[in-house]
């Protein structure tokens, strides 16, 4: 392999892929969500554009491109325009640290399916997902209108509160794997032969609930509760700026599902990685296993949304401060104790 291919073409290709991959997943998710929720509610859902309506999100995107871009006169133009960018930027940047599959060997060259492997990758992803709060709150404030501001305040309270149990459960994984490097965490699960989700079910459940809350999804979609707040922090946005908020929410869901899969369900590993009789499962490329797993969790998002009614705001905050955080703390202590005693 020539140096040009190895040093220029492949990195550029990876950068393009890391932007395209979340975007494609977003399109798939929007279609899947509308169809699945419709089926669960005994409706048909979009089924006209393309086969079974798969091109509906594309049609929506085209429509949003051509829509008039409205900004009301009282808005703070600078912050209003930069907020969608901030939200999108933080969601996409985090994907650089997500390993999508095991390294592929082509001759002497090893193609890694991630852009950056960092010893603190986990912390960086958590940090970046907290950066997306900026976009929400600046957008809500800059709109200079009451519902966006209320939505933004709710969103920040919610995200900041739910970050605490997220951090505490992620720590238990880092503790057991002795690493905060996402690739290393998957390798440790391969070596130990157990997915951490089965080793630490409490961690997984707490993490998943907080993850649903952090992405502002039903039943925790208080920041954009349409019956109370119109559309929450992006009420005043239209056209592509609205689309940015919308896509960033879905990209964030894909990111969180990837994190769940990597931390608790073995990333690109096949099921039962250490059982000899199931060794044929290794024939399927790791990337496919990873995709299957994250599709399951994305489906779970949709499923939960179609099943559970929305929380009241005080109940939402009570849930995190009085149940999840104490539970996560006790869980952390137990894991730490077991880790030290063993």
């Amino acid at each position, binding site marked *: 392999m020539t140096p040009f291919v190895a040093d220029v073409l492949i990195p550029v290709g990876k950068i393009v892929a890391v932007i395209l991959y979340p975007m494609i997943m977003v399109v798939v998710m929007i279609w899947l969500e509308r169809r699945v929720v419709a089926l669960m509610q005994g409706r048909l859902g979009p089924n006209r554009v393309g086969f079974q309506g798969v091109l509906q999100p594309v049609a929506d995107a085209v429509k949003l491109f051509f829509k008039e871009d409205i900004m009301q006169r009282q808005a*703070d133009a*600078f*912050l209003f325009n*930069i907020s969608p960018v901030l939200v999108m930027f933080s969601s996409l940047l985090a994907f650089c640290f997500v390993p999508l599959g095991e390294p592929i060997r082509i001759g002497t060259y090893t193609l890694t399916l991630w852009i950056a492997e*960092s*010893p*603190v990758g986990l*912390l*960086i992803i*958590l*940090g*970046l997902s*907290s*950066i997306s*709060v*900026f976009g929400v*709150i*600046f957008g809500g*404030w*800059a709109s200079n209108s009451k519902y966006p*501001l209320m939505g933004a*305040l709710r969103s*920040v309270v919610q995200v*900041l509160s739910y*970050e605490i149990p997220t951090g505490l459960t992620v720590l238990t994984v880092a503790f057991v794997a002795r690493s*905060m490097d996402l690739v290393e965490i998957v390798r440790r699960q391969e070596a130990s032969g157990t997915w951490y989700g089965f080793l630490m079910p409490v961690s997984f459940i707490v993490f998943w609930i907080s993850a649903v809350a952090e992405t502002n999804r039903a039943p925790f979609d208080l920041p954009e509760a349409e019956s109370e707040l119109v559309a929450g922090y992006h009420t005043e946005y239209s056209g592509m700026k609205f689309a940015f908020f919308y896509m960033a929410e879905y990209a964030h869901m894909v990111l969180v599902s990837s994190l769940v899969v990597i931390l608790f369900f073995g990333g690109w590993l096949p099921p039962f990685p250490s059982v000899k009789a199931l060794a044929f499962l290794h024939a399927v490329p790791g990337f496919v296993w990873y995709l299957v797993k994250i599709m399951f969790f994305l489906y779970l998002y949709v499923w939960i949304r179609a099943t559970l009614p929305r929380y009241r705001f005080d109940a939402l905050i*009570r849930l995190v401060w009085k149940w999840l955080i104490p539970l996560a703390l006790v869980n952390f202590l137990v894991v730490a104790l077991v880790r030290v005693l063993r």
Partner: protein
Amino acid sequence: MITLAVFIFFAVLAVVAALLVVVQKNAMHSVLYLAFTVLATAGVFFALQAEYLGAIQILVYGGGIVVLYIFVIIIVNLKEIVPERRGLVPKLFLVGVPVLLCAEVVTLVMRTGFPSAPSGPEGSGFREMAEMLFASYLLPFEAASILLLAVLIGAIVVARRRHIDDPD
């Protein structure tokens, strides 16, 4: 070479954003630039391969402190600052004090030699940091956190209005 370019890029970005924080009239814009400063500083840490510091910078300062600032600004409802007319002496102070401080910092930095930190795959630094916090300086660290807790509770007690029946 590329590392140096990245370092200079983020360093310049941090300084420019920090200047913009000070000169903005709108408090919310200041906070946005403060966020940029924090992120650019994290970029500087990454360029120097102090990845742990960079991640913590994003997580604590970006995700925590800056968001608190935003909250305070929204809650106290700051309007745009109207520049007031000042006399000559306050103006001299306004320019003189920062220049003096800057000169002091520059001379200090020039005089002090910085020992180079060990780098490598373990160079992200959280092991060293953990050993410092939880072995060498455990007592001062814990004392500082108890002090912070006391201050926090004290602030709540002082600020809290009397005779509130809190149903929760």
